[in-house]
């Protein structure tokens, strides 16, 4: 918007009330201190040795691939879903909106069970797939992606929907009066204006997918190189060697933060 950031040359640092720094500091502490504690307790010198096992590296690679894929699917399915939920005036849309919240609250293990009941050999969709195409989903990498998408997509949808409602429809209306079809409006106006929120939403769903454990192990199982993602590996390690589990977890965190910070394009920062 024209008046959005009138700031041209230099604008003064936006005034954050100083009282806010207190709770903000507390919040930051809540987040940082435990992780610091973890770092302090772990033997950093042993890290390379703990991490550089084939099992860990396999798991890391699998995690990154599947999380990226499920973020992609979350975007492909979740953005349209959010737009429909926020913009459509179809009757019953409120109910649909509530339904999308389901996987958010379902304990992941139960979510995995639900997927198993649906896509397993005896599930009605799984049976169909097996009989018609000979495809079996559980215990495959595909299953991991599905499980992750199932738990991660709602995060994207909910955060996008909030942003869409907040933004209103005036730019979309302008585009329509300029002769743009709904699809053009969506592609050239709605979507670009949604980028900052999409950025947040993608971070949330990528993070959720990367950390996903319960649904994955229940629906996809845990087999090295196929379905054992890093959180599953961390969990398995924690049974025998807590230190290496912690090292692995920190590796996961490091990689994730790097991916998010580095891969997050500027356009998603809202600095227009």
């Amino acid at each position, binding site marked *: *918007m*024209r*008046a*959005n*950031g*009138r700031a*041209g040359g230099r604008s003064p640092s936006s005034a954050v009330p100083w009282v806010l720094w207190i709770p903000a500091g507390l919040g930051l502490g809540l987040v940082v201190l435990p992780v610091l504690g973890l770092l302090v307790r772990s033997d950093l010198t042993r890290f390379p040795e703990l991490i550089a096992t084939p099992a860990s590296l396999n798991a890391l690679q699998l995690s990154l691939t599947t999380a990226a894929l499920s973020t992609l699917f979350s975007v492909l399915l979740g953005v349209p879903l959010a737009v429909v939920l926020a913009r459509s005036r179809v009757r019953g849309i409120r109910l649909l909106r509530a339904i999308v919240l389901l996987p958010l609250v379902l304990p992941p293990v139960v979510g995995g069970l639900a997927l198993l009941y649906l896509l397993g050999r005896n599930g009605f969709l799984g049976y169909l797939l097996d009989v018609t195409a000979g495809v079996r989903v559980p215990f495959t990498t595909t299953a991991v992606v599905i499980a992750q998408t199932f738990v991660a997509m709602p995060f994207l949808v909910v955060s996008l929907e909030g942003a869409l409602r907040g933004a209103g429809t*005036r*730019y979309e*209306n*302008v*585009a*329509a*009066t*300029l*002769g*743009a*079809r*709904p699809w*053009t*409006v969506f592609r*050239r*106006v709605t979507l*670009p*204006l949604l*980028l900052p929120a999409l950025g947040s939403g993608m971070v949330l769903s990528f993070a959720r997918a990367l950390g996903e454990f319960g649904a994955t192990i229940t629906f996809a199982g845990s087999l090295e190189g196929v379905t054992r993602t890093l959180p599953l590996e961390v969990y398995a390690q924690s049974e025998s060697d807590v230190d290496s589990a912690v090292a692995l977890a920190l590796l996961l965190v490091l990689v994730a933060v790097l991916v998010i910070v580095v891969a997050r394009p500027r356009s998603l920062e809202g600095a*227009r």
Partner: protein
Amino acid sequence: MTGLRASFGFRRPEFSLELDLDVPPGGVVAVLGPNGSGKSTLLGCLAGLLVPDTGTISLGGRVLTRSPRTHVPPHSRGVGMLSQDALLFPHLSIVDNVAFAPQSRGVPKARAREVARRWLAEVDAAGFGDRKPAQLSGGQAQRVALARALAGEPDLLLLDEPLAALDVDAAPAIRALLRRVLRSAAERSAVEGPAAEGSAAERSGRACVLVTHDPLDALSIADRVVVLAGGRIVEQGPTRDVLAAPRTPFTASIAGLNLVAGTANADGVRVASGAELAGIAAADVVPGEPAVAVFPPSAVAVYRAGTSGTGSPRNLAPAVVGSLEPHGAVVRLRASGAGWAEGVTADLTAAAVAELELQPGSAIELSVKAATIAVHPSGA
């Protein structure tokens, strides 16, 4: 082609709009009216952004809205709109903002940008093409928004105060541009001669509804004027006729004329308080019916109370100076008083004001020659 035919009603809790409006192809209708009279609402209904509760809107014979069932969505109406806020897409560069409309019609990107640059040049904004909207000043943004609306080359163009933020140099140029783009080929050739060149779209005879607060826009761009008040049309007709013989105080103050409403009598108009104002009645004035007397501020002479003498002017009334405002080269005095003198304005030279030592509150006498007063039957 039958142009725009609209006859509809739109209701809000505290406001309702109810009107009949026809704009022939190539015609330009100016919509005037006080703030909140429903001008933007009217445009919204025509553009398809608002859904009327009753009635029909059709363009070129095609039904756009027939309440309550038919409602052609905005993008397939062939209607373009410049709204009161510029609302440039913040994420697109200026040239892409303007190229948006041609691109939406399927023009390839490079070609659309070319078209956009041409329109930007037309509104004297060629230099900003690569900036983002946030980097423009208010008036620059307004011009770009106008270029964007024009680049859509719609069959019906809706403009909501397109010149409000423009500077005095830009306004006449943009006004001329609008005239060039909007007037139908036939009409234009009569005015501008055969030298006038124009694109196919410029010759297409598109219809236009132009909302404005400036009578100059109405006079110079529009063929017809519609005056809205409280969601109803209170006056309409060819621009010059309406502005020359306004029948509502609002139109009169737009045109800068004095207007005194009352009942027609043999000699002129009798106002509610019983005072009479003599004037020259139009042919269609019927004594006993409502009528208005119209006269320009320059026709009003001002004397200090008790010094008016008895000369040829037949209309004399005591009054008090309400306000004094510079108005171009003259000072406009607004009187308050009884009878027809209430609210009458008079244009005086600064020298006269100084000489008469006029100040708000000064007691004065107004005098108007009957020959300068035109009496029309009044609409309401």
